[in-house]
């Protein structure tokens, strides 16, 4: 089915195609259209699922977990403060091994209030045990939701999965996209059959007290699930391409990397922007390639080590910041390279709180990285002045500004 829709509505259509049975959700900008569309599809008799209009995100994630543990396929969507508010349950979902999928519309965390795109929300959930996909196009939104269920419900994974899409850039813009037919998806993704569930015929206690004698094992088993996911992701993406004819990469997506001297590493729609940068700079004779991290968890360690062997330098774009350190992807990438490659890596921080990032800006920074002019960490689009800083001197400066 060919449709012209917003990224948010495409999430809802993908959720229907995936045969989701329970959707607990709480509204937050810029996610609202996802759940409005789901509610509309159900009310109109176009989708057979239970919609739970919960009273908070903490409850949304709790209901998501419980619904999944009965054996039903469950989905939710959130963003930014909503994701932060459900943080306890985000850990819980992974710890109790609930194979759920949640769309997160990437938005900045306040204060100050900001409804626009950056990746601070989902990066802050890095260590919860969830798998994380960052998508770069409308079509990839649909395909990732369907792939997501196939990956998370795999017996060797059983960890929840977060599909991250950039606020407004994807969530609110319209593009034509292909939504697969429900019957076609059912064959690829049959109804969920759990190996354990809340079943009165076979009573089991879930999430009981675990003493120090057993706790490490439960956590190591989560890491084994993450490791297994690397293989499962590759299989699922390959099978998906065979059935539906669409490929967005698996763990990563490469563009003109093989003969590149410098690789731009990015996630989400800034990777789409960087693709344009590659084309522009190649016209100037610069050998630039794009390495898009599609799965941030599990982290593409092997792929990055292979990248380190092939290029002479790397520019990592982060749409987030780990305060007291640097961009999170920058840190992780260097960690993966440690002991394998000494290739110089630079960090570009741009697009926080939805600031528009032009391909010209990324191209300019890439040229500087090639010529060695770029510092280790560059806040590429920040216009900070003394009045932004929190010091007594700056307070005086601020007072002067006020007159």
């Amino acid at each position, binding site marked *: 089915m060919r449709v012209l829709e917003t990224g948010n509505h495409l999430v809802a259509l993908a959720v229907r195609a995936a045969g989701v049975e329970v959707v607990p959700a709480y509204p937050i900008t810029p996610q609202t259209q996802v759940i409005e569309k789901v509610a509309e599809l159900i009310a109109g008799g176009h989708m*057979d699922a239970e919609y739970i209009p*919960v009273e*908070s995100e*903490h409850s949304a994630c709790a*209901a998501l977990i419980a619904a999944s543990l009965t054996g039903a396929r469950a989905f939710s969507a959130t963003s930014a403060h909503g994701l932060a508010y459900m943080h*306890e349950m985000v850990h819980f979902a992974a710890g109790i091994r609930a194979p759920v999928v949640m769309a997160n519309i990437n938005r900045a965390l306040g204060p100050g209030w900001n409804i626009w795109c950056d990746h601070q929300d989902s990066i802050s959930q890095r260590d919860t045990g969830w798998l994380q996909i960052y998508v770069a196009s409308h079509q990839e939104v649909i395909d990732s939701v369907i792939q997501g269920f196939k990956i998370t419900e795999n017996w060797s994974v059983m960890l929840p999965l977060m599909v991250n899409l950039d606020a407004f850039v994807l969530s609110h813009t319209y593009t034509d996209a292909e939504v697969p037919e429900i019957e076609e998806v059912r064959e690829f993704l049959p109804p969920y059959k759990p190996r354990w*569930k809340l079943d009165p015929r076979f009573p*089991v206690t879930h*999430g009981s*007290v675990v003493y120090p004698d057993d706790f490490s094992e439960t956590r190591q088993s989560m890491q084994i699930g993450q490791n297994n996911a690397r293989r499962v992701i590759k299989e699922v993406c390959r099978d998906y391409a065979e059935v539906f004819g669409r490929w967005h990469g698996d763990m990563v997506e490469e563009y003109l990397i093989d003969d590149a001297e410098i690789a731009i590493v990015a996630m989400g729609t800034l990777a789409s922007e960087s693709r344009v940068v590659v084309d522009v700079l190649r016209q100037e004779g610069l050998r630039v390639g794009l390495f898009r991290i599609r799965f941030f968890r599990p982290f593409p360690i092997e792929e990055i080590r292979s990248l380190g062997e092939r290029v002479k330098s790397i520019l990592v774009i982060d749409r987030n910041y780990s305060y007291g350190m640097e961009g999170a992807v920058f840190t992780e990438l260097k960690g993966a390279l440690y002991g394998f490659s000494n290739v110089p890596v630079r960090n570009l921080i741009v697009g926080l709180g939805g600031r528009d990032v032009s391909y010209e800006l990324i191209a300019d920074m890439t040229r500087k990285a090639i010529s060695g002019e770029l510092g280790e960490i560059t806040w590429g689009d920040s216009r900070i002045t003394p009045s932004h800083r929190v010091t007594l001197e700056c307070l005086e400066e601020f007072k002067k500004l006020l007159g």
Partner: protein
Amino acid sequence: MVTLKSLPEEELFLAGSTACHGCPSSLALRIAFKALGSNMVLIVVASCTSVLQGSYPLSAINVPLLNIAFAAGGAGASGAVAGFKALKKRGEIEEEPTVVMWGGDGGTYDIGIQSLSGAAERETNFIYFCYNNEMYSNTGTQRSGATPLGAWTTTTPAGKHQHRKDIAQIMIAHRIPYVATVSLAYPLDFYQKMQKAKSIVGTKYIELLAPCPPGWKFPSSKTIEVSRLAVQSGMWLLYEHENGETRFTAATKKIIEGKVKKRPVKEYLEMQGRFRPVLEKPEGKEAEDLLEKEVTESIRRLKGWVPEYI
């Protein structure tokens, strides 16, 4: 007529529980299981009941159980109810199991009130069971919104200065079909209210006063006696609220009808060590009077829902 001897013999609360001696939650689980039968699912929020199940890989609870976060009781139940509805539609199960959420007063009065309120407003079909031991017993007896005035806890070392809230009345204000209070000293009244709750569609709220021997400082053999005196003194009123009307039950009914004389609150307070610090002080009498006044007010408020008193 239901008698203690006619209760089902099947025990779904098995041996091996790690509860304290005289624990009211484990006694209540036994009665509740007998009333509800095995086609049920238990959701448990962080509380003593998370701990008394036993620890991994053993469990004393022979019904499927999901332990969920402290604030998430109503929401966890909502997800389970929706999940079973979906399974029934899919043809996986014939009958949806009864979903019961089990939590303490902390998980109900304080951190869990939002989740409970949301589930009730959505008319979720489940039983919310609060075993109210009037403090955070599991974390070592700290004050909660259910702690009565004057009671010692580790965070009210001089006795609590505020009244407890009346959450059953808050639940009645949600217009749910069934609200009831129960006591371990009146097990048949308890059993029948659980059975009735099971037969009603919608949100059912049941609250047990759960005297906690280590927290309230009384011998672990006295749980039932303290439960009984709580009812006889009016500090715990037994009633059920259905279709917009309240009906007093068991000993409370007899007290209200004048058939039995209400015992003074003082007797109930003196049975427990937690009121000793305040009773020993000059303001002890004042606390006692305030609690007597609280009882009178609670009865008056409840009578406003009873047709024969309106």
